[in-house]
């Protein structure tokens, strides 16, 4: 039992820190407004990503042949901690690096890997993931977007939703129904779609706090080349499951959540440190102690998943615990922040009386989706109880051929 990084990994972390210290001033010197346009965001993302690629400091656990550094998931974790949490540039390709590209690396042909992975690592292409539909969220296999053969290729028609960063994306990983007579899970195919192609339209969804992260995506007879099928034709379900396992495996989302949770802890420290426990703050004290403890648990669970990944095992259902942890912890943390702020927690806008310009209530609103996005808590509980504990599927889901 040893929780320490190896000496080599510690040296690697040091080297990454040095690189960050050397390269951040240049980025900070560039003009970048507090409320950037999409073009400014894209420009800054591309610049920073290119810089990272030049030093092979992104997705370092991928093979050198596709632009990684041929290191392990542990070094990838170190880079995530040391670089990605700094938010030097907007994280526009988080979906690509966490889900789409790992599954291309895992299930794609050599040609697909070479065509798509280096371009994304150079910061040239941004990816989105086109799974959920208005009528198919947790029940993903109920999706109705259709792909019909057209000559050698395919024509895609339908609608996707909750698509993060689709308004930036150049390419999308799209699950569509390729054989309508087949069973729900068997007639699906995974496509690599060009988002710039004729027939693709993207419409923003404003979330509860006014931010634009998600989109609706419409496909109107969009052509997809035959070589852009990922995995087997009609074999898309397996690819989709693998994608979701990557999301809960090495995507390190829980690390990326840390800065916003740490912000709440800092606020709590400012409000609670030095004050004796009173009836008025006892509940908050208990809550913050629980938060600190659960963060430690989450970190260790993340390391356990990572440890599995470095021994070569494909991501398993254990990653579901980390997803449950980060989503539930962040929701409780953001709610706690507002409790600590009191009436000021309900104020927005640029005024000295408003803490952090209303960041806390806005982020509290954003956190509502945490237990729904990236696998709802209910689906995750189904997965762990069925796949780890061996509980039977419910009667409705036991029959994959039931009518749609």
């Amino acid at each position, binding site marked *: 039992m040893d*929780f320490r*990084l190896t000496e080599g990994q510690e040296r690697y972390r040091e080297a990454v820190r040095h690189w960050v210290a050397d390269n951040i001033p240049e980025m900070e010197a560039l003009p970048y407004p507090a409320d950037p346009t999409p073009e400014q965001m894209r420009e800054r993302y591309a610049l920073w990503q290119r810089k990272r690629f030049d030093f092979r400091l992104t997705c370092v656990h991928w093979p050198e042949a596709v632009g990684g550094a041929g290191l392990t998931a542990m070094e990838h974790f170190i880079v995530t901690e040391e670089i990605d949490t700094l938010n030097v540039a907007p994280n526009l390709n988080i979906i690509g690096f966490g889900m789409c590209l790992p599954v291309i690396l895992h299930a794609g042909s050599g040609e697909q890997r070479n065509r798509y992975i280096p371009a994304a690592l150079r910061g040239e292409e941004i990816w989105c993931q086109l799974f959920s539909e208005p009528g198919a969220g947790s029940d993903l296999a109920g999706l109705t977007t259709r792909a019909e053969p057209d000559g050698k290729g395919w024509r895609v028609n339908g609608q996707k939703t909750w698509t993060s960063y689709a308004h930036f994306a150049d390419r999308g990983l799209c699950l569509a129904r390729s054989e309508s007579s087949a069973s729900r899970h068997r007639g699906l195919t995974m496509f690599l779609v060009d988002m710039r192609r004729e027939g693709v339209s993207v419409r923003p969804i404003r979330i509860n706090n006014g931010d634009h992260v998600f989109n609706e995506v419409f496909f109107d007879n969009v052509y997809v080349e035959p070589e852009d099928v990922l995995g087997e034709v009609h074999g898309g379900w397996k690819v989709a499951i693998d994608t979701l396992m990557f999301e809960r495996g090495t995507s390190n989302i829980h690390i990326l959540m840390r800065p916003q949770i740490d912000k709440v802890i800092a606020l709590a420290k400012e409000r609670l440190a030095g004050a004796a426990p009173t009836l008025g703050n006892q509940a908050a*004290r208990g809550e913050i102690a629980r938060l600190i403890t659960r963060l430690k648990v989450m970190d*260790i*669970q993340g390391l356990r998943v990572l440890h599995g990944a470095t021994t070569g095992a494909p991501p398993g259902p254990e990653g579901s615990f980390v997803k449950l*942890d980060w989503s539930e912890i962040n929701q409780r943390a953001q709610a706690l922040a507002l409790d600590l702020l009191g009436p000021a927690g309900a104020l927005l806008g640029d005024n000295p009386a408003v803490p952090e310009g209303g960041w806390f209530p806005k982020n509290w609103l954003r956190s509502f989706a945490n237990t729904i996005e990236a696998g709802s808590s209910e689906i995750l509980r189904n997965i762990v109880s*069925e796949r780890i504990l*061996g509980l039977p599927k419910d009667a409705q889901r036991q029959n994959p051929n039931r009518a749609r």
Partner: protein
Amino acid sequence: MDLRYDENQILIQDQAREFIARESPLEQVHEWRRSETPLPGPVWQGMAAMGWLGAILPEDYGGMGLSLTDLSRILEEMGRGLLPGPFLPTLTAAHAVLLGGPQEMRRRILPAVVQGQLHLALARTQEGGRFDAMGGRFFADSTEGGYLLFGEKLAVPGLAEADHIVVAAVLGLPEKIDEGVAFFLIDPKVTGVVIEPLRTLDGGWTQASLRLDAVRVPAYRLLGENPGQGPSVNERVSALLDLSLAFDALGGAQHAMEIAVEYAKVRTAFGQPIGSYQAIKHKCADMLHAVESLRAIAMWAAWVMDASEPAQDATPALAAAMVRATAIETYDLVVRHATQVLGAIACTEEHVMHLFAKRAKTLSLAFGPLAYYQEIILRENGFGISAGSQGG
């Protein structure tokens, strides 16, 4: 990084599980509890023969010199099997003797503990609004050639069975508490020691009250070269206790969950196994999530305490408080959910679930409630509170 138990640790755990399944199966524990029978002497002797009583004591005293991570493999199995008897009191009191006792005391006590000849008790915490050894109404007044001990402790585990008692007392008289805590080794048979066994919620975790009426204790029975060593002995022994209780909770919670999950696979209602309904399977998932969370932090806490160099991000005191707080909440959640999954049968005397519920509650009440550990977590994270208001 290597987050697996090594071969030897797996072997230790397998042997512990076999021993407990053979010598103290759960049905037998249930029967002992019904008949209010203590752990039979031969089982204790068997534990001694397995080396458990000296697991973390140095080989100089006949011990095995194992790490806390090694020991945790045994503790988890003990918790799994709800093994009764004063193992934890003996383990922790012996550790206090090892850390603070003079050489003569160590030579006299520790090899006999290892061989299963002595039961020990650790009378550390007390009531009165304080849960650390510094609290309470228990004083040692220095006198010629030694100390005079006064005071009461309410619920001391393993006390009635103990051949020797390690007691924590505040040096000085009530009006001048300024010299801190000290530990003494007391013979329960000397004049002035009054022990009254109490009936307990968990019959496998015996407790008794202790009163000392001006008990004269010679100076050589003080643990530590000087009285000032008390706090460091206290800190290390309480960390050991917290870690041990957490692994006991881990094994117990895992077992209680397994009992409920197995039932959910075979019990049918409305034509389906109840485990196919989300209302039930999500409770099972929550149990597993809680158990695996406790397992994660317990593995880490044991490693922090084993490390020769202090960990970067945690003191042993913080690790101990975090693992204990997690254990309290986990075991409580699991027995409640397991009972709900099992249904009414789990609320009967006949079913074993109440044994787990009683152990869970007893462990969560022993040595301080959740809020006490939460305050330690806050203190160790820079949420310090002003001196004077510190404590449970």
